[in-house]
């Protein structure tokens, strides 16, 4: 136990806790949008696609910076997304299949390219996160991402919800639907980028999907969906970081395991949806 207290007192660990709180909040907040957009599957593709994008930028520039990582992942995501769209339009292959082909190929390429990169980051860190090694500069970036997410989506909440609900009607009503979709895409890429650091390429989608799903078990209010998602993401990530030290398990996976466990509990106890709903509607 005293060892635990020692670790908690260390600066790197305090940074990790702050990072977990910020990343968890951002991802939890955005997970509300993911849920309403029903886009979890394509986001899984997106998160894997980010790996080669980031690795490529590191290969070209020689160093890993947040701006570089953002641009790299954005470009890679756009390329894979657009390619899948073009291929599925011009052939019999469904878009989901095309997307799966492109993102797994991209991810595999990224893994191959990793061998040529020397950033001091090991494979484990790329794939499953390394929140314990975040620096002060990273914290400012995470804070910035959280602030942009909160401010932007609060200012645009009304047109965003109309876009998510029924885009064709929103267009006719004068909502700039295309810009709202760009904005949502940017929010999701930024959130993924932040969680890339915390839980890595493979698990980042969990952080961006689970909190909203937990809250949706208990509320019918969109406001609660976003804020509740933020709180759950934050609390879940922070407690997972603490747990990971206490139990001596890897931090990234611990975050997703904790969130997955919370979802299971939510599913079991939710009065309005989940298991109890399923049982009562059958009986």
């Amino acid at each position: 136990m005293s060892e635990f207290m020692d670790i908690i007192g260390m600066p790197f660990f305090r940074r990790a806790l702050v990072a977990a709180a910020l990343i968890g909040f951002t991802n939890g907040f955005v997970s509300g949008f993911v849920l309403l957009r029903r886009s979890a599957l394509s986001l899984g593709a997106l998160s894997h696609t980010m790996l080669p994008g980031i690795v490529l930028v590191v290969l070209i520039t020689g160093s890993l910076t947040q701006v570089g990582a953002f641009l790299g992942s954005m470009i890679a995501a756009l390329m894979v997304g657009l390619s899948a769209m073009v291929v599925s339009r011009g052939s019999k292959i469904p878009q989901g299949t095309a997307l799966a082909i492109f993102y797994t190929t991209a991810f595999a390429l990224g893994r191959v390219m990793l061998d040529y990169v020397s950033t001091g980051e090991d494979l484990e860190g790329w794939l499953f996160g390394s929140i314990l090694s975040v620096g002060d500069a990273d914290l400012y970036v995470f804070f910035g991402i959280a602030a942009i997410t909160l401010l932007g989506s609060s200012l645009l909440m009304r047109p965003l919800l109309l876009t998510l609900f029924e885009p064709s009607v929103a267009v006719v009503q004068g909502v700039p639907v295309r810009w709202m979709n760009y904005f949502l895409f940017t929010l999701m890429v930024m959130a993924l980028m932040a969680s890339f650091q915390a839980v890595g390429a493979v698990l980042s989608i969990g952080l961006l999907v689970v909190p909203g799903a937990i809250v949706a078990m208990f509320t019918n209010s969109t406001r609660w969906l976003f804020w509740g998602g933020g709180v759950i993401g934050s609390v879940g990530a922070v407690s997972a970081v603490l747990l990971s030290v206490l139990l001596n398990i890897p931090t990234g996976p611990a975050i997703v395991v904790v969130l997955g466990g919370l979802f299971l509990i939510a599913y079991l106890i939710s009065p309005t949806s989940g298991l109890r709903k399923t049982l009562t509607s059958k009986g």
Partner: protein
Amino acid sequence: MSNSCGHSHNDGQKHELRIEGLNVSYRSELALKDISLQASCGRSLALVGPNGAGKSTLLKAIAGLVKRRSGSVTWDGKDTLKCRGGEFSYLPQHDEVNWNFPITVRGVVEMGRYPQLGAYKKFGEDDRIAVEEALEMMEMDGKLARRQISELSGGQKQRAFIARAVAQRAHVLLLDEPFSGLDHDHTANLSRLLRSLAAEDRLVIASHHDLGTLTDIFDDVMILNREVVASGSCAEAFTKENLNQAFSHRINE
């Protein structure tokens, strides 16, 4: 119901929707061919034709939602692609709606007020009245208004979405199969509503599949099968020959 779209008809001049030589294609196939139409407010127009005739596409083209290959669609002299201030309200067939969206019936109808409110304006007394009236007209007020949309039957969903279109108090209503899913009483109710909207100097354009009720509800009809088969007042255009011509393709297929 007051006319809140900012247009007055004091000078006796009607606003006009004008379509000229409209062609729309999906991939390489022509979905609409050389469509022309003139319709002014104060009228109601039914679009009739077999499946795949292009009724939904024509409504989308008027709303500015599909690309035109050629031709023009103007409202009051202005390209409808630029009419984004709430002049038009549009009721699609709701294939793209996420039915698990956490929103109540009232919430859906309140969305109809976006053109008046924009992103920031506070929901005011006018908006509240417009929403309440629309809910009452579609008999979705009271308890039903507080229901989540996931809990509604098909007909109730349809009524909620019509209420949203009505709450917008638009000048032109573009309704894609507004009667689908409605039972007998609500069909009669909606018929009355559409007639009263036209009587209020709005322009109602709706695709409609029930040929038996059409002439009771609508002033004008356009019989469509990718191209215009016949168009005009119901008395002129809604004839057996025209319908046969439009629907005969279905037999050949």
